[in-house]
């Protein structure tokens, strides 16, 4: 989909080449789903035209959390603590509302050690994009189950997962999330527009991206393998993204699409495939997820969106600009008020 004005075909709306959006070489395993997500992110960020100095790449600990080093080298990155990315992102965004917050996490980082912070980030509706690179296992410690592994899923060494999985999308919707999508690392056609829609959304945008671990969880019996996803993925809709002020250049058949206007004026157009899925219906989203869980299907697409909620910075009435820009006179109590205040203690 062509959404970029093409006065110079080699630069984006910020006047930057695609090179600028690249990072250091990945140190993850060859074939890792996370590397594909990084490439889709580079494309999405480049096309979206994010100014690198305003991008804050936030992450926790794990394979997924290493990836912010692999894109937009120029941007600030914060590879913090295991499961604590949401709080760091919250503090950074409050400090400077102009920052574009992009959080990268994994299933261990989010669904286990960081589950509390995940929940509260969603409750607060911090304006950020939160990507879970979800492979159902702990890669860096050599393949233990994570909490998103499906019950009955089998480890490489034969152990069977006996515990119910935590559905991060279902949980997010329960918690009042305002943008929830599920996708697959191998499906750039779906993931790139979903990422861009997430960038355009004002509030917490959750993207749970199934991202197979080629080393520890890509075998027969795993429900997070390339083969399993290929056989069980069900697309809710086709997905196109149109930037703010971009012309919608595709002629859609009337009645075949849902056109959702996002907060910054961008559009996400959902093409009907089979059922007419309504992503503004929270109950339908939850029912769809429950049914997929029972049938073993992997439902992907924009599960839920609410474009009318206020985000944390709005609720806190934060200034538009960085708090670091305020000087003594902006922040201190005036001398007159101070004298009166001290007098009130006498």
């Amino acid at each position: 989909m062509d959404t970029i004005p093409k006065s110079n075909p080699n630069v984006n709306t910020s006047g930057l080449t695609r090179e600028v959006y690249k990072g250091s070489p990945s140190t993850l395993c060859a074939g890792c789903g996370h590397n594909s997500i990084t490439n889709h992110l580079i494309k999405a960020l480049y096309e979206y035209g994010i100014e690198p100095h305003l991008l804050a790449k936030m992450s926790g600990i794990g394979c997924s959390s290493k990836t912010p080093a692999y894109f937009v080298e120029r941007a600030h990155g914060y590879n913090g603590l295991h499961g604590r990315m949401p709080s760091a992102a919250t503090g950074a965004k409050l400090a400077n509302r102009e920052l574009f917050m992009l959080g990268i996490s994994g299933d261990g980082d989010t669904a286990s050690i960081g589950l509390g912070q995940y929940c509260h980030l969603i409750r607060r509706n911090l304006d950020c994009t939160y990507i879970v690179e979800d492979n159902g296992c702990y890669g860096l410690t050599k393949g233990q189950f994570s909490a998103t592994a499906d019950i009955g899923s089998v480890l490489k060494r034969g152990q069977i997962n006996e515990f119910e999985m935590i559905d991060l999308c279902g949980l997010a919707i329960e918690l009042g999330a305002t943008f929830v999508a599920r996708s697959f690392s191998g499906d750039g056609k779906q993931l790139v527009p979903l990422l861009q829609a997430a960038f355009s959304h004002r509030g917490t945008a959750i993207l749970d991206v199934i991202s197979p671990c080629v080393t520890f969880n890509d075998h027969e019996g795993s429900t997070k393998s390339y083969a399993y996803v290929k056989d069980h993925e069900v697309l809710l809709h086709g997905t196109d993204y149109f930037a703010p002020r971009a012309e919608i250049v595709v002629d859609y058949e009337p009645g075949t699409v849902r056109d959702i206007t996002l907060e910054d004026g961008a559009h996400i157009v959902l093409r009907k495939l089979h059922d007419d899925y309504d992503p503004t219906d929270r109950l339908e989203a939850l029912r769809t997820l429950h049914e997929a869980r029972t049938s073993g299907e992997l439902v992907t697409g924009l599960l839920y969106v609410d474009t009318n909620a206020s985000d944390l910075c709005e609720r806190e009435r934060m200034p538009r600009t960085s708090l670091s820009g305020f000087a003594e006179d902006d922040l201190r109590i005036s001398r007159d008020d101070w004298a009166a205040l001290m007098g009130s203690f006498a």
Partner: protein
Amino acid sequence: MVNDLTIRAATVNGSGSQSSNLVLTHALVRLGIPVAPKNIFPSNIEGLPTWFDVRLSPRGYQCRSRDVDVLVALNLVTWESDVASVKSGGVIVHDASYSVHGKTARDDVTYYPVPFTELSKEHFPQGSPRKYLINMIYVGVLAQILAIDLAVVEAALRDQFKRKPAAVELNLSAVRLGFEYARDHLPKADSYRVEPMPGGTDNLVLMDGNRGAALGCVMGGCTVVAWYPITPSTSLCEAFIEYCDRFRVDPATKERRAATIQAEDELAAIGMVIGAGWAGARAMTSTSGPGISLMAETAGFAYYAEIPGVIFDVQRAGPSTGLPTRTMQGDVSFAAQISHGDTKHIVLFPGTVTEAYEFAMDAFDLADRFQTPVFVLSDLDLGMNLWLTPPLAYPERGFDRGKVLSAEDLEKLPSWGRYRDVDGDGIPYRTIPGTPHPNAGYFTRGSGHDEDSHYSERPEVYQRNLDRLLRKYDTARSVVPQPLIEEAGHEAAILAYGTTHHAVVEARDILRQEGVEVDYLRVRALPFSAGIEAFIARHRRVYVVEQNRDGQLFGLLRAELPAHLLERLRSVRHYTGEPIDAAAVTEPLLHAERAAGQAAAAALS
């Protein structure tokens, strides 16, 4: 006994005695009498015993006294032990229904029975807050017995209730009721008296340390607060929020120049603070022991990744839940090194309300200047009790934001590295996310990194980084608040910090009367400045007085001092959960100093 006594009100938590105690306290201040109020309260909303002590002293001692001179007994549950707590010659005002026999019948105290419940029932209509008014009755009784001018009590009461004018007359009538009952039924039989001390409290106000610290945060330019409620630190953040609502709202846009987030736990609270510090805001959290334990992880990250943030630890008695409403200097050694791995933090020890205020401002400057978390170790006694203090001075100094590179700076630099030690002081330069320059960005990580913030596991790079962090810590030695020294060439000295100071002040006066003179050094921060070792070297015996079981600062000193000075240190420890009093200092010191004197005499003979 004139103006030198401790009044203790023993009541039931939740019975509303706080207003009465504050009226009494403020009345005494209005008379010019220096007071030191101490609220000794339970971890409970309603029902458990609580005590409020007001110590009056002509010399203005701010520490607790373990002697109770005048007891107001309004809690039957603690009646027996409350009676036992009164010193010989003391006074007991008590509910007339309490039986005075056996252990509660003492022949060395004066009893003033007052039928509080009956008086309240007789004079106040049903539906009025009789339970609360009983407390105002005892204020009137005390005013009569101790000769406190009723007009001054009335003025203090009117001020106390200025936001609830409707309650003034009812409460005032309760005070008068007590006053008149005592006048008519309780002939004076004790020797205690209050006399006005004109000028005695001029230019002093009553303020708690948490409020002082909150004002320091406002004036220090703090713009992000993330916190989780925990006694005794809660009122610090609540006061900050109160002042932001009053003074930080743009009248035109209604925008608020501060974010104040109640976090889901202390992990998130400090996570937000460090995230905000990374993005350039001055950020703080306040907590107490259990919270500081949870913050260890992020404190270590912020130390290693070099991100500013301010953490107030209003210490309470631990370990674990411990005594949540009692005081302790119990987190000193933990805060000094909080984190796994080799870690050393800047820690400030405010001892007064003025320092709670000033060190709060200092903490933000130090955090920015050294790009590291700074811990301010207050305690429950300082944080939650009222102290007589000079009004807080308007800051004349601007913010010190430390080594921050702007886009203009970057334009002039051929290259820069986030962790390069350009100036040889161990302190690198940083950029703030959002700085509009292609070279501004860098990658912050808690994993091994080189001077240019690239990932590195190389041994020499790792060691070089740890050494630089130590160099930075050493730079801080002469920048943090320096020790205060009172020295006159004596052989022995006291070394203390934080609120222990107030007991030391009185203890030195008592010791002087006993013929034992000691010098005094008050430590106000970690890392230790060079002056501390020099002071110890000038004394043969240095008593390190602190409020914990293990001699935590004593241990930190021993870890840094040269071997030949170690035997000069003696550890004096108080750890009951009550604020330390002078006797806890004088008793061990008199004993040790007399023994030292005898040993010296024996050596001569």
